[in-house]
């Protein structure tokens, strides 16, 4: 069935809720309204207000009570309305959800999934276009998953919900409806922790995730004749699939990493550190970072200056190729 990402996520939620009565949704406006992005559309009508729970306006409350529900054996799927509003919940995520299994030596655990629409490019309001993945990837005990399209979204979300540990599931809102593709109607899972080689190649490795995959595809569409490009979609940011990255870079010797978040301590930094550790001698050129800047995501009128775009990505690829 042809679906966009909103439909794919909706389908995953709906099927998991049918399969497992302990799956409940919590969030702001996810009920009758179907969520501000309509991701939960129809679920309230289908499962009722005991399974699709409109919460008061309080993000720490959403995550903190989800932790409680998870302790009691449920599988809460929380929604944070926009990236910028995850910060009030960070204490509950990092100091609690992420630590409970470890600190109780396995006695308690928190099978919580937190959905967070993120990243820019939709000309949204302030605090509606941020890319906060670093905050979660740095925190031990969390898993961080980012789909790059409808097919990935459904399979990864189902895996996240079934995962026995807390997963931050980051949804690149820019491609909520921008990509349509065949998505199986039945349930399926995509393993967490495994990157995907989207396109095999031998000259240069391009690594990205989320909405940027589309942008990278666009960028390399005009370079594919010139270079043999290996394109990797990380899919999971934590735990990071180091092996896939390393074997690719060992083969190509050149690497460009694209992430929309701020450059300093963005995902690209960690990937470079791991390449440095395991494939330094293979490198023919410095690994290139094409990322957001170390500044605040601008308001709509100038957000295009901030976002990595095909031109900047191509420039990055040319740079490593021409080194």
């Amino acid at each position: 069935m042809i679906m966009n990402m909103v439909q794919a996520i909706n389908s995953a939620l709906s099927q998991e809720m049918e399969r497992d009565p302990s799956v409940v949704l919590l969030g702001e406006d996810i009920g009758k309204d179907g969520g501000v992005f309509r991701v939960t559309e129809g679920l309230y009508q289908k499962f009722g207000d005991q399974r699709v729970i409109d919460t008061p306006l309080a993000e720490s409350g959403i995550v903190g009570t989800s932790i409680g529900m998870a302790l009691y054996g449920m599988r809460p799927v929380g929604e944070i309305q926009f990236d910028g509003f995850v910060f009030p919940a960070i204490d509950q995520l990092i100091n609690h959800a992420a630590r409970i299994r470890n600190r109780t030596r396995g006695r308690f655990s928190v099978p919580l999934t937190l959905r967070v629409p993120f990243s820019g490019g939709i000309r949204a309001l302030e605090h509606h276009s941020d890319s906060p993945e670093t905050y979660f990837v740095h925190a031990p005990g969390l898993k961080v998953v980012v789909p790059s399209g409808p097919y990935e979204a459904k399979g990864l979300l189902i895996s996240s919900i079934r995962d026995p540990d807390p997963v931050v599931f980051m949804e690149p809102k820019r491609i909520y409806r921008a990509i349509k593709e065949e998505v199986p109607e039945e349930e399926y899972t995509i393993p967490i922790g495994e990157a995907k080689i989207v396109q095999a190649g031998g000259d240069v490795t391009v690594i990205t995730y989320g909405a940027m995959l589309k942008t990278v595809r666009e960028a390399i569409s005009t370079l594919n004749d010139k270079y043999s490009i290996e394109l990797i979609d990380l899919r999971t940011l934590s735990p990071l699939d180091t092996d896939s990255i390393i074997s690719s870079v060992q083969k190509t010797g050149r690497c460009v990493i694209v992430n929309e978040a701020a450059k300093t301590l963005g995902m690209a930094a960690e990937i470079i550190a791991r390449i440095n550790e395991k494939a330094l001698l293979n490198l023919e050129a410095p690994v290139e970072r094409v990322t957001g800047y170390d500044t605040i995501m601008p308001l709509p009128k100038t957000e295009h200056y901030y976002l990595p775009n095909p031109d900047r990505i191509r420039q990055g690829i040319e740079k490593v190729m021409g080194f």
Partner: protein
Amino acid sequence: MPAEPVKFAVPKMYQILDENGKCNEAEMPKLTNDELRKIYENLVYARMLDGRILNLQREGRCGTYASSLGQEATQVGSAFALGKDDWLFPYFREIGAHITRGLPMHLYLLYWMGDERGSKVPEGLNDFVISIPVGTQNLHATGVAMAMRLKGDKKAAMVYLGDGATSEGDFHEAMNFAGVFKAPVIFVCQNNQWAISLPLSKQTASKTLAQKAVAYGFDGYLVDGNDVFAVLKVAREAAERAKAGGGPTFIECVTYRMSDHTTADDAGRYRTPQEVENWKKRDPIERVRKYMEVKGLWDEVYEKSVVEKANKMIEDDVREAEATPPAEPDDMFDYLYDKIPKNLADQKAEVLAFLKRGA
């Protein structure tokens, strides 16, 4: 005597001017005729500019926008209680307050059009900028008020929040700090019954928002937010009390969000047209008009002049906002710190070189 829970009686809503323009003159705040007219004109300008922005949005000339329709009395009445030296902290739905304070409204437009320069409030105007994250502004206002008190300045800070914002932790911490430090801050809660799709009854189990002040040891008031005089009266007394060292006040203004939450929302998904219709009868502007008419302060000629003046201002606002030349990419680097650090200067140079090459 068996254990009894803390007892509490739900308060009654304070009103001066009813839905039909009937006024309890004994309670009227002191206002000159000029002030009365000013209030009316602010209400009208607020509503008209708001409507115009909605149109601009539909035409693709403005970004997502949060309309104030129906909440003008709460906004104008409260802001009118402030002096120039007082500070105002909006959230994102206060067109009437900004107008009343004298913010050049093309800036407001510019902001919603997606340009940071819209938040460059003119020097001398003590108005902080819009807060998109719900609830956080309460702490900023409380901090300003704490500083006023520490410095011995006889000023007050006024902060706006929605009914939904009362659920956030920051609201609680701000109320508590305000109480403990007797900060001269006035919390103006625009209880417009909805937080996007969440009705008040699902936002909190407490019967009123005003009673939340009980938790913090200071006064809460329940006021008809569509009655500009009641709001002004209570806000003015709160400001006076604050400046006299009496500490904070919480004012729940009962009003209604007549429009969708924002232009990205469709309220038809979660509330009945009937509900909206019912609130139309409690329109905050209509009743002022009726009142002024009785007083001989309103007639068709006056109305025409008010509308014309507003239209003229609105045209100027729109023109000025749209005539603002596009921002430079430099801006995203130049204002982050007082002095640009080297790393950022390098990134800026990269962007500029990249853009030059592209051109």
